[in-house]
């Protein structure tokens, strides 16, 4: 009965398990081949001696992991961590008010959201290069300040921690705004009215109703900023120069210039483990302090 297509569909409908596999299959396959397998290869590499011309030689060693605990690398790790946390906090402080305003934006809502995602239309690389034109000694900012007579000498901004932080915050801000916007947008306005009629002034109303109910968005935004910030290398490379190395730069170097894949892999796994621990700790703390007891 029916065409082959109809028969196949009928067969799928009668078997919920087969249907689930049909839906999950393609995505699972993709992740398996292009994520899980490479990561396993990397893990194996991180435990093998380094080959003379790159690659690995047969054998087993923990040397690469031991090497990471050199003060030189721990310094990079610490800087990466502090910067990622700082970037997340700055994004949160800048992004929340923006998300809040857009969520209350009435008819401008869609237009404003469009503006937030607009930068994604250009590659991140191009946008980061554009920041060089802005920040360098002969760049737009210094030129204006000189012309206006605010400064006599150009301020060095490029290749400083400031430039890296500016680039990171700029790049990740939309990832903070979007989830917070989503949670504020579906906030039931009658809850705010109820709080107000129960005697809550605007600040109290925000602290006790708006903020706790937007926490899922805040948590999602923080994770979406913190994790990629921790692994970023493009921004620190272009805007920070060699002095402002982040862990991402180290890994990239080991895989490219240094041709030391095993050490690069080991560094990656250490960072991955740290991210996992940090995120778990964060979620634990967040669950314990949802603003107030239920």
């Amino acid at each position, binding site marked *: 009965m029916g065409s082959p297509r109809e028969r196949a569909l009928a067969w799928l409908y009668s078997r919920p398990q087969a249907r689930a596999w049909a839906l999950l299959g393609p995505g699972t396959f993709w992740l398996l081949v292009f994520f899980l397998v490479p990561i396993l290869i990397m893990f194996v590499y991180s435990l093998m001696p380094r080959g003379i011309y790159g690659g690995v030689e047969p054998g087993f060693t923990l040397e690469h992991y031991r090497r990471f605990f050199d003060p030189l690398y721990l310094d990079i790790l610490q800087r990466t961590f502090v910067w990622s946390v700082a970037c997340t906090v700055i994004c949160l402080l800048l992004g929340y008010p923006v998300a809040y305003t857009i969520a209350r934006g009435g008819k401008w809502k869609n237009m404003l959201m469009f503006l937030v995602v607009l930068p994604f239309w250009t590659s991140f690389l191009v946008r980061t290069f554009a920041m060089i034109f802005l920040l360098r000694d002969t760049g737009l900012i210094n030129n204006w300040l000189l012309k206006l007579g605010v400064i006599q000498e150009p301020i060095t901004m490029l290749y400083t921690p400031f430039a890296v932080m500016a680039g990171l915050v700029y790049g990740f801000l939309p990832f903070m705004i979007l989830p917070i916007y989503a949670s504020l947008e579906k906030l039931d306005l009658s809850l705010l009215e109820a709080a107000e009629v129960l005697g809550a002034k605007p600040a*109290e109303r925000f602290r006790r109703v708006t903020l706790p109910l937007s926490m899922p968005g805040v948590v999602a935004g923080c994770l979406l900023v913190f994790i990629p910030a921790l692994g970023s290398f493009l921004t620190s490379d272009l805007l920070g120069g060699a002095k402002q190395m982040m862990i991402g730069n180290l890994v990239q170097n080991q895989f490219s210039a240094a041709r030391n894949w095993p050490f690069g892999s080991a560094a990656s796994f250490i960072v991955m483990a740290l991210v996992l621990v940090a995120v778990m700790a964060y979620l634990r703390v967040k669950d314990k302090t949802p603003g107030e007891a239920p």
Partner: protein
Amino acid sequence: MAVPPSPNSGPVVQLSSVSKTFGDTKAVNDVSFEIQRGEFFSMLGPSGCGKTTTLRLLAGFEQPDEDGGEVRLLGEVVNKKRPYERKIAMVFQSYALFPHLSVQRNVAFGLEQRKTPKSEIGDRVRKAMEMVRLKPDTFARRMPAQLSGGQRQRVALARALVLEPDILLLDEPLGAIDLKLRKEMQLELKSLNKQLGTTFVYVTHDQEEALTMSDRIAVMDNARVAQLGTPAEIYENPRTGFVAKFIGESNFFDGTAARRQGGKWEVERNGGGRFVVPDHPALSDGKSVRIAVRPEWMDVWPPSDVPAGENAVGGTIRDVIYLGETMHVIVTVPGCEDVTVAVRNEGQLIKPLPWKRGDQAAVAWLPEDCQILEEV
């Protein structure tokens, strides 16, 4: 029916010529009324009639137009006051319980905002929950998502009553719960009103609900108060066709006032025949008049048996409808809309009504059961 306000108090709510405009739309147009302490006052009307906006003006979510009259609560002009500066409590149509707070914390919210001592809060929350018949031990720790609609309704009510407000505003609070529970809650609300002495201002589109609970009703239509009175006044003496139609059912007859005789008026019906109606200030010689008659005040007779002294129109039976408690006999009358007559059902199996479709019949009623409408 009206419960007189306690003698030592003035009105707690006063609206004088209040107007509110949104864009080009007048949502509330020159509305004035006063509500006495302890009254159960309802605003009744179809959606878009301005009742909810009026309530929001009392709550402080909206403010009257610049030259839009005065809102007074407890004697004080509050036009510019924010909701948290007004001594009111409110129950929302959607309940608006805080989903991240337990029942206990929801009910305590207003007390905490008003800086009530901690030692007092626990006791008052318990009392408020008991008042709305929610067992504190069972429900205090539950989250709103774990409650049924009726229970949420009670939490919302407890959250408002715990503040011991002078004025409680209720915005269609029973709209979302099922009929049986709704009837039960109506009686509970009414008894809470009497027991606490709190003034209730209640918004509803359900005329039966308003009649059941209210001391007085403001029927609203098209941003204005169409009529304000006790349930009996509104039902038995509607001033306009809108009120007569919106509250209960009515049959309408149009005619011309012909002559006044012995304290009564004779009216020529537009479709033929004449009625006798009670005297009314709106009547004068030759003036056109619209009369409303409630279905349950009418009776159906064989054309030749109409009792003397009653008004009557003749017609054809169109339908006999079984409603359980009552029977509706629908009669087609030349020159006006079909007339509905409500007859008590005395048992159709034992004592069936003698009418069937197509029978000739007369509909009759007493002159004093004619309601003369001011707006034709």
